[in-house]
């Protein structure tokens, strides 16, 4: 079988890491400004279907309408679903293996109709469950990105 052949050469790319510079846009920038300066969460409401989008974005895709009504949401939320990630993989942002295990939640902030994906604190005594109430634990100092929330923790957990 070919895979046993010691003469076959595999060329490694080494510790390749390519930095990028991503635009966050006006709506995303406002969300992160409020998060950084005021520890507040904002979404935008569609004038047609009334859905509140978090992350905020200018356009409601299904209605194809621009949105400009900003709505404060959270900071408390509910776990829509979650998992506990247990296998290590390469984080393409850093080129390093991501530390595991970590709690991974889809969090519906109060007043929002879509979710934030974020880390969940893994509680020692109480189990995480769908429907659990969570609150954000903020990072100090904050930089204006999603990492300004360190993780969400179970309320009363």
């Amino acid at each position, binding site marked *: 079988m*070919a895979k046993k052949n010691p003469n076959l050469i595999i060329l490694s790319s080494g510790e390749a890491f390519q930095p990028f510079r991503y635009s966050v846009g006006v709506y995303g920038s406002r969300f992160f400004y409020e998060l950084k300066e005021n520890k507040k969460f904002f979404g935008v409401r569609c004038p047609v279907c009334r859905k509140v989008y978090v992350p905020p974005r200018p356009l409601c895709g299904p209605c194809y309408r621009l949105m400009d009504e900003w709505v404060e949401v959270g900071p408390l939320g509910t776990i829509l679903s979650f998992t506990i990630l247990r*296998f290590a993989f390469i984080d393409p942002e850093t080129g390093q293996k991501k530390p595991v295990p970590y709690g991974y939640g889809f969090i519906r902030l109060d007043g929002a109709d879509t979710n934030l994906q*974020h880390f969940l604190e893994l509680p020692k005594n109480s189990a995480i469950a769908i429907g659990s109430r969570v609150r954000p634990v903020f990072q100090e100092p904050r930089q204006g990105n999603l990492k300004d929330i360190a993780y969400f923790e179970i309320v009363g957990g």
Partner: protein
Amino acid sequence: MKRVAIIGSGQTDHTGSRPDVTGAELIQEAVSRAFENTGLKRKDIDAVVIGNMDHFEGINGVELWSIDGNAGFLKPTIKLTTGGTTGSTLAIAGYHLVASGFFERLLVIGWEKNSESDTTGAITTAFDPVWDRMVFAGAVAGLAAEAMAYCHRYGATAKDAARVAARDRKNALNNPHAHLKKEITVEEVLRSPLISDPLRIWDMCPRTDGACAVIFAGEDAAEKLSSKPAWILATADRHPYTYACDVDFSSLHSLEQASREAYRMAGIKEPLKEIDAMELYLPYSYAGLSWIEALGLAKPGEGPKLVWDGATDMAGELPVNPSGGVISTNPIGATGLIRAAECALQISGKAGARQVPDVKIALSTGFGGCFWSDVLIYGQKKP
């Protein structure tokens, strides 16, 4: 619009790692087998459509650097990439390009060399760097959250899901091209290591090196070149979300909608009764419970019962994944196209040991991105 059929295909012998070939050489293996299978030569092909997901290899532009292997030298050559749905997008595009009348004999190729990178890391690059990537963990974590929500809603169990994995892995024993060819029991799935709650390693598809090439032909060429072409009766696709965090987990809406459109186009009213075989893009076991509900084969929450009753087994009313499916073989850019090639083999009666008797109608799906779905339906009778 012209009628279109699949008249033949070629697949590599899929495996976890092929250090003996480059990407272009792997592609060439599948293309040569498709030519052998159909009796066609490079000169008979009007155009080539090829696809993969670039980040698995970290090399962009396969339509350029594989030009010798993909048989497209000095011919129209098009590259498509849509993440997990790449293979099914290729099949749908193959249909569109031939149905339009622009090309009569089209070579469609899907491939991946997943051994060349960290699969989960590469999948992560398909998602939004501002909102999704920080916590994201490829297909595994999103699907784990989907499984968690499905079990919470309907009380389905890990054992129900393991029954799906055991079925597909057993079917793979009949497929000479399959990657994982070892039978596993429900108990072995339940004892395998937990990777992302509630998913265990044997609930999840592998990562595979492999390629698949399929020849699409217009009506005249199809009837001249094949005694039993697999006619394409319907194609449909749906893309529901911008961000991975927009998912609502209540059902696979994209598959519900795409399948209903395809059923309407093909005149199918009762899919469980009217369709004879399905090759579904089920990247993990729980999808074999909830997504067959989205396809309308069972009511919401009743997928597990249909699976335990044996309806989806090889001897059942509607065999699902006679090839062993994605849980047995997953060269990602080829995966959706393999489903199309396998359905065509079933319709043509050339599926060997994995043949389901007398397949008149078959259906394949593709899955990817933010819970996107593609559906194709094939028939023995010319539409």
